């Protein structure tokens, strides 16, 4: 063990003489990891937004087969019966904590490029503050039911034109006044505009809701609530725990982002690995005499392997750290909108570890073959060259 440390330390001390070629590995890995982590930060930010929207103690009800709230309809009467289902939490006055929601959208223009984008306008029922306590007003005042008034999510307000408090938003029945700004724990609601459901329904000239969200008496009441709805007469409905619903909604887009990240990062990593192979082969060529001498005076092959490997891994580690730092400096917290959804890219500690693990795995490949060659190098031939 001690000899391994000695040999490794010796080889690391010779790096300054070879910094030019070592830089190739560092830069290569920094670029590959930087690309990987940057793209993954989009996925991490997207997932963070989606998961902080859904709560395990809420359930969302939509019509059967609806792929999302947009494609769902819930009749007014149906919504009324649903509020009486068992498993729903009730407030001090015994009123069930539920909201039947309607969603419309309106066109706003994106601040960065002026492109028209549809943002969701959610109509919520009266009990909403108890249902979604994470939605907090941070400026202005709440909308008044019956008035054409609306509050705007922080993300939407920052990303799009014309959504400041006092601005007017074009919706059916004219211009609606923006009365306040809210935040919502960084969730998807922050990309939405919220108003009163009945006011929005009548403006849209419809009586059908899109979905119904309920607060469960406890997270465990979900089964009771779901069974009660499934066994009641009437059209089939789809009941999901809200956290599961948002996880499901984000799955395919997240897979898409991750595929791109690993394809791009992987190809760049492959390029960087060839660079690492080059560097490490030339490193052992430069150290041929030294290695042969070490072997001749009795140091084992393992010590040589470890010393070459650790050199390769060290370069990769430095490269990965630079790549992660670069991605962090450039993209962490960067606000980005995908259609109407506003997210903040996130370079999380988990992503940093992913990037470092990725680089170390490639470094292991880039170091292994040269290390094996170094350990097998015929001592006599190498020393003869002296």
């Amino acid at each position: 063990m001690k000899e391994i440390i000695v040999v490794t330390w010796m080889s690391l001390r010779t790096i300054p003489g070879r910094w030019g070629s070592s830089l190739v590995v560092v830069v290569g890995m920094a670029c590959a990891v930087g690309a990987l982590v940057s793209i993954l930060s989009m996925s991490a930010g997207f997932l963070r937004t989606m998961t902080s929207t859904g709560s395990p103690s809420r359930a969302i009800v939509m019509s059967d087969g609806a792929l999302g709230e947009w494609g769902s309809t819930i009749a007014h009467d149906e919504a009324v019966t649903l509020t009486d289902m068992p498993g729903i939490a009730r407030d001090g006055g015994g009123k069930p904590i539920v909201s039947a929601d309607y969603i419309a959208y309106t066109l706003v223009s994106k601040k960065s490029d002026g492109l028209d984008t549809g943002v969701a306008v959610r109509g919520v029922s009266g009990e909403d503050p108890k249902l979604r306590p994470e939605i907090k007003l941070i400026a202005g005042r709440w909308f008044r039911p019956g008035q054409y008034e609306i509050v705007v999510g922080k993300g939407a307000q920052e990303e799009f034109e014309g959504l400041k408090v006092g601005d007017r938003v074009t919706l059916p029945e004219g211009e609606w006044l923006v009365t306040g700004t809210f935040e919502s724990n960084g969730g998807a609601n922050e990309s939405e505009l919220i108003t009163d459901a009945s006011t929005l329904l009548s403006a849209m000239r419809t009586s059908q809701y899109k979905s119904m969200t309920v607060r469960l008496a406890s997270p465990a009441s979900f089964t009771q609530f779901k069974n009660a709805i499934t066994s009641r007469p009437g059209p089939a409905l789809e009941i999901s725990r809200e956290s599961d619903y948002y996880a499901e909604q984000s799955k395919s887009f997240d897979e898409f982002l991750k595929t791109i990240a690993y394809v791009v990062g992987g190809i760049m990593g492959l390029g960087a690995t060839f660079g690492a192979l080059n560097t490490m082969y030339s490193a052992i060529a430069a150290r041929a005499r030294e290695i042969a001498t070490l072997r001749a005076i009795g140091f084992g092959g393992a010590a040589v392997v470890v010393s070459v490997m650790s050199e390769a891994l060290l370069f990769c580690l430095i490269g990965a750290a630079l790549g992660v730092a670069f991605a962090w400096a450039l993209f962490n917290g960067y606000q980005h909108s995908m259609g109407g959804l506003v997210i903040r890219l996130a370079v999380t500690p988990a992503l940093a570890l992913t990037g470092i693990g990725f680089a170390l795995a490639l470094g292991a490949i880039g170091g292994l073959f040269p290390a094996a060659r170094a350990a097998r190098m015929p001592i006599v031939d190498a020393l003869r060259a002296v």
Partner: protein
Amino acid sequence: MDAMKYLPLVLAGLMRRPARTLFTFLSITVAFILFGILAAIDGGMAHQLEAARLDRLLVDTRYGTQLPLAHLDRIARIPGVTVVAPRQILVGYYRDPKTPFGIIMTDRRFFDVRPELNATKEQIDTLLKTRTGALITVFSAKRFGWKVGDKVPVISNTLRRDGGHAWTFDIVGIIDDMDRPGKARYFIGNYDYMDQERTSQKGTVDRILVRIKDPARATQIGRAIDAAFANSDAPTRTGSEKSERQSDIRSIGDVGFFTRAVIAAVLFMLLFLTGNTMMQSVRERVSEFAVLKTLGFSDTAVLTLVLAEALVLCGLAAGAGLVIAKIGVPLIGEVSPDLGQLLLMPWPALLTGLGFALAVALVAGLVPALKARRLSIIEALRT
């Protein structure tokens, strides 16, 4: 070509350390495969925009409501409008719930709005005579392995009046989109079939397609359409096909920025890689260059020789990578049609790639080349 006689010398220089040259070569090749794929993503999107017709307007809902069929007649009366067609998408899947697709439920007018579809009059007649009929594109036929005469069940989220979710279609013909042959994923059925069978939203569509006589009046006609419905139950938002596709592409993010950033990172990496290889090679061959100079090679000739090595290495490796990408991109389409239809690698992209490779070679080779040029014979041979 007088310069050609130096080619063996250039190749000998490169092959002096075959392993090093090989790894550098592979690294550059891989980088340019990535360049090719990114160029294909860009190219695919550019092509979609180019294929957008200027004489076509899309009428969508402004706030999220369905559009009543009555809108069609009203739009047809607006001056300058030549054809109006309904469109309702039926979303469903065939066997695999994970790959849902959209079926366009429409009528004869759809083919007048989309003349790029090569459906014959007979095919359209058969479609309209067969209530459950469907025309599909070559792409769709290949994707699902369907042929004319097949009866295919599509499971949809749209409820049927019999309480079921299975919508049956009879494939009556296979057509193609002449603007994107083999890549367009159309599945076209009869609007009436859907409207009679569905339980809600009867008599409405999710989009109205409009063809106009004079593309120059597109904006004006679009405004006239929206004005006509501003105070109706279903206000509209009319836009050109091009702006629609632009915002579709933008909705996944700034793709152009992304591809440029990755390409910049790749080139940066290659600069170091190639520079290092050339530097090592020049350092090892100091005495060889001295011999060349002794034999009468000028300083400039030695500089050119080193640059030529870098150019040959980068050019060949990048060429290999670009060719692999050019051949490989259509193969991606064979494996995954969904990805394949987004990719298109234009020939000019190959030239751009080659240009980048040669630029990298020149920049990366410059310092080693200058070093070889400055080399003094006496000092080099003394060591």
